[in-house]
């Protein structure tokens, strides 16, 4: 048996000349079996925003905002107006009575903000001549206002009227904002997290004031997310992951992802030269309230908020930086990267050594390709019985440039956007073919037979 294992390893090792994870075509758990290329952009597509259960908007460096139907792949609208690249986009849903109407707010480098109606394609509102270009947008539905973050924090009402703004900050500006309880907003500014509080003064005038500055990160903060009502998290360029209490803004947990094993590396690793800081940079965080996924360099890091411990990780999940991640409802995980691929992962429990060796276990050895990864997990297995592995169950290959982002429409599919100016809608072939057959018979009936 051992020989079989070793043989298997060798065979696979020889196939894989590079650390690229190779899964092959056999991906029974990957149900994205059909793809549809959506063309329309002329430059990098960076943002995808879901409008409702079948529409979404895409925007990017060409300043275009396109509205698509995910079911048909049809381009519904083309929203033109921005002269420069789009820097942020968000959906703005406001409910009046029973009707909910979703609009799109876009921010561009041309220092304008626009509100679009995705039904008609009209540019409903627009604000130009901002002092700085807006890098992030946040809608506070409770207060019926929205916040734009550039060099200063501006609060706007529904009619695009500036309610108030914070004083000018340094040039780094606000890179991310999250909403906190008690009308607070956390904004990431370089190495600091600044807490703002919105107060409703007399005459229902809003004012914003900085109430706290958290300077615990050593390097600039790339990611800032809400986890649940009581927690938010931030991640920095050097791999610091801090869990904050949302109410009193204290540190609940601190994790420094160093990929520390790299120091004990074998020759192979040394050859690769010293790890660049970007290898530890936390580009993106995502959470479902219990688990948090950090895109760390080209690796993935799954952290349990409840146990405040690492659940699973993989240092080289992609060939290049991971740009976006998503937790799947079935306990899986999806990530996209600059290497142009989207990968689907499954968290599998490590089996007890007594049990027959699973492909997963050896898969990890093999895929990791060197001892550097195999070592520590084993060590951690002893310490942390809950540590699980991230098993690659499928990958979506289609883009020829970095996959910037994706948005999921459940069983209708997944849309990815990329540097190669394309969007791809990934779908379930069987489902689509079924739908097409239904359409066929409908048409047949309309035509009254062949």
């Amino acid at each position, binding site marked *: 048996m051992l020989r079989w294992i070793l043989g298997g390893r060798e065979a696979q090792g020889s196939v894989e000349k590079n650390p690229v994870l190779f899964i092959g075509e056999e991906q029974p758990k990957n149900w994205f*079996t*059909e793809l*549809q*290329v959506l063309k329309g952009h002329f430059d990098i597509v960076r943002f995808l925003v879901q409008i409702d259960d079948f529409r979404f908007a895409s925007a990017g460096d060409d300043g275009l905002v396109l509205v698509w139907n995910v079911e048909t792949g049809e381009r519904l609208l083309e929203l033109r107006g921005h002269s420069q690249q789009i820097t942020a986009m968000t959906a703005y849903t406001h409910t009046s009575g029973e009707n909910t109407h979703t609009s799109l707010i876009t921010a561009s480098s041309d220092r304008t903000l626009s509100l679009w109606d995705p039904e008609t394609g009209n540019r409903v509102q627009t604000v130009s001549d901002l002092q700085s270009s807006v890098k992030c947008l946040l809608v506070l539905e409770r207060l019926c206002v929205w916040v734009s973050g550039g060099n200063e924090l501006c609060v706007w009402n529904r009619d695009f009227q500036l309610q108030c703004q914070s004083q000018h900050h340094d040039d780094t500006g606000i890179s991310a904002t999250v909403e906190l309880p008690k009308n607070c907003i956390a904004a990431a500014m370089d190495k600091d997290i600044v807490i703002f509080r919105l107060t409703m003064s007399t005459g229902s005038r809003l004012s914003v004031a900085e109430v706290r500055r958290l300077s615990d990160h050593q390097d600039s903060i790339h990611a800032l997310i809400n986890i649940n009502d009581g927690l938010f998290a931030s991640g920095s360029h050097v791999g610091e992951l801090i869990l904050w209490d949302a109410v009193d803004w204290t540190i609940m947990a601190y994790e420094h992802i160093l990929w520390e094993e790299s120091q004990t590396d074998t020759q192979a690793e040394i050859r690769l030269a010293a790890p660049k800081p970007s290898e530890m940079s936390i580009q993106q965080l995502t959470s479902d309230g219990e688990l948090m996924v950090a895109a760390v360099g080209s690796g993935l890091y799954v952290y349990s908020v409840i146990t405040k411990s690492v659940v699973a990780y993989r240092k080289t999940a992609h060939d290049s930086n991971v740009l976006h991640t998503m937790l799947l409802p079935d306990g899986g995980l999806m990530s996209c990267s600059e290497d142009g691929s989207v990968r689907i992962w499954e968290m599998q429990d490590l089996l007890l050594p007594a049990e027959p060796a699973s492909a997963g276990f050896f898969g990890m050895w093999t895929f990791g390709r060197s001892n550097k990864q195999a070592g520590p997990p084993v060590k951690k297995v002893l310490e942390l019985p809950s540590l699980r592995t991230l098993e690659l169950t499928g990958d979506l*290959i289609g883009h020829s440039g970095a996959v910037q982002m994706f948005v999921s429409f459940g069983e209708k599919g997944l849309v990815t956007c990329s540097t*190669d100016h394309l969007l791809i809608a990934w779908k379930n072939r*069987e489902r689509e073919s079924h739908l097409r*057959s239904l359409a066929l018979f409908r048409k047949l009936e309309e035509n009254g037979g062949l």
Partner: protein
Amino acid sequence: MIGAPDVVAFTKEEAFGEVGYPNPWVVPEEFSVPLFPSNNNANPWAKTSYAKFTKDFILISEFSEQVGPQPLLTIPDDPKVFGTFDLNYFSLRIMSVDYQASFVGHPTGSGYPRLSFVEDSRVVLGDSKEGAFAYVHHLTLYDLEARGFVRPFCMAYVSADERKIMLQFQELSLLFSRASECLKTGNRRAFARELQRKLRDLEYTRSVLQKEEGLQREAGPQGCYSACAVDKANELAAMEKSIYEHRDLLRQITSYPLRPRRDPHAAHCHHCVTESQRHRDAPPGPDRDTGEEAGQRRQSYTPQLIKGKSAKCFAKRLKNLTELCEERFYEATVELLNHTERCFRGDLCYLYTRRLDRALRRKQNITNFLFEEELGEEEEEVAVLGRIFCSLKHTVGTDSHIHTPSIVLCPEPPESVEVNPPCPDNSAQQSVALTGEERLESSLSDLTMETQDQESSEENKDSFSSDRSGGEEEEGREGGDQTPVFLLEAEEGGEGETHRVCEREGEAEGVLNREREGEAEGVFNGEREGEAGVLGREEGGAETEEGGAETEEGEAETEEGEGQRAPDPELLVQMDTACCMSQEGFLYNSSPPDTLPASGLQPGSLPLPLVVNQEPQALLPVQGDYGLGSPHCQSPGAGLDLPVSSSGDTTSRGSDQDGWDCTMSASTGSERAGSPLGYGGLVTLRQKKRAGQGALRFVRQYPFALHALWSLLSGRTLVVLGSEEGRVRRLVSALALYVPGPGRCGERVQPWLSCPFSLTDLQRWKLIGLQRMASPVGTSMLCSLSRYSRYISVLDADRKTLRCPGYRGTLLANVADHRTRLRRGSTYFLHLQNVLSRLASRAFLLSFTHHLHLPISHLEQRQEVEERTRGFLRDQLRLGEDDCSILMYLSQLITQHYLDSTSVGAVTTQPHLEKDNTPGTNQQHLDILLPMNVLTLGGGGPGP
């Protein structure tokens, strides 16, 4: 009538039935094919092998009043076609059947000459001595200078196969009627114009005479008429009469199109009819003498003084056919005849099969797009049977036609254009004037018209009956014009036939093979000299030494021609432009015809160039041959495919050892010609059949062909990677046969790509020829290859490897058997078509079976329906998983095609394209690294 001893009447039912030809029209069932009479166990192909011409042709002859019957034109206009066949003699034969006494002259009660509006007649003639049979279509054209104003002509479809003519009689008759109508229309226009000029001449002459007479009268003493003056007066009277006569003729000819037609085939273009009607119905306008315009008009033609003696002048040179008919009508006629000739190319069996095939395909128009070529043009061909057709495309020049009258039509003679460019109004005026004139004599003319109509309708009753029931020769002749059918049967016919066959049998086999191949590869076009033997050599195997040697020689020639033609810069330029057509031409210019292996073909020691490789049709129409030998040259891409086989053949011939490779180095010039696809032209059936050869070769040479084919059929893009363009292109054109739904112009196939491809390319193209390059571009190309490796299969043409999922099904086993016993591309193509259309019909079943896609009960989920579909494929169709994927893909294409084609007006910005991603299926990558299976073709024949 010129004596024609072995012209005997063909009495239809009895005689014909006795000979043993079943009438396929007795059971007018769509799919019936008449069986060959098997009573005497004769070789069906040997029947008319002694014909002196090599293939069917159309002959136009005239019974000239000066020199008697003479051939005027053959279609195709190529002396090779009729060989040593004596056209003069045959013209005499066919024109000697004086089908109708064209009566001219002064009918009783009328002082004016009458034009006889003669209906065409259709006759079948045979000359067993010559081995020639003909459908003969007699017609008369009008000529002012001819006796009785008529010139008898005939158009004959000459074939060596009597049965063919008999059984295709209806169709022939229809097509020839169209041509005839066209020609006659043009002739009437020309005739009318001639009459008008003549009238003007006459009037001018009259006015001159009047002046002279007036002068004489003044000069002479009152009441005293000199003999001279009397002469003048007589002359003037004659002139007056002549003018009346001509006016009457003009009226007759202009009224022609309005006559009720009794000829069932002589259908008129609606446009033409209304056009002439309009001018007829136009109110009488100002007389031509009034108005300035009329004056201008008259300037357009300078009247000449004529001697008003007689309109009939025998000493004159008679007009030829082109002069008798307006140019564009003449051209249209010739085009129609060319079309006719193409339509009837090939053996009867082929014609029937093709018709059957078309009928079947029309039934399956939903799945046709998958593997069949477009019906398009052929459809029209068939539709013609019931359609009124105007040979002049009226839609094209509608405007100009609308304003111009039916009679006075452009093109005006050039000199008139110079003087005064005729504008439509002018000519309209003119015609109006004519009608006005007509009105004056309307009472008389109406009467005559009527009587004449009666006469001819009576005639036609007879002719109708003769068409069906047949009759005596005399009856046919006197009774009508329609279809007296004659059969010439010489006594010694049978003997001669067998004799010749015997003569041939010994020597012919190898030659036959070769010839057949030659023909199969489109020799009919006559461009492919050197190639004819080549295929034969490879395929036929057993060849005569002589033939082989010649082939070698030819090959050397060709290679030399291709490789070392540097001295001629023009040729080189042509080669470089990669224009297949011209290249083709040059290729053959360079290989002289005397290297042809066909020298021993005709025992009659015919001069070589006449025989070339155009086998008499009747000699060897082994089934497949006509499939290939009956090209539809009309399609724009028709010429493109020729080089495929030419280069392919050069290859195969030159490289006995190494199939594909060898000659490529030598024939670099033809490399670009490697593929018929990607030139934007339609992919014709012919091209596909041509590709069959390549496909067969592919299948036989690569043991892993099966897997490649599966890739294509299950929708996985196949990339053919190679550094030599010619080889890649050829592989692609061969493999294109297997691409389902390749598109009208092969849009789903990219024969040669030299830049890295992207995902969208993979969606667009299902078969890609990719250039292997060493440059940085090459590496990025390899990147894209590996990146998309899951969507593609890679066939490396240089290393002879294939990387693709392995196929474990059964459906494709018999199209990709590399030990196949099929030797000929055309046969393989038909075999393949057979298999593919079976697949298509199954896919159709899969797509359109309700319960396989719709839930039976409301509770049913999609998964259950899918399960049922899988069960259907597995249990009912007994297909394995891999085979299922083929059907699923085809069904998917059908569904999509149906949805797309029927949704008119639905705006889809993005065509929804499928991608066979199928990770779900348990595919494993097979890295098939097999050495090329070398086909040994030397010596005793091809491999196993």
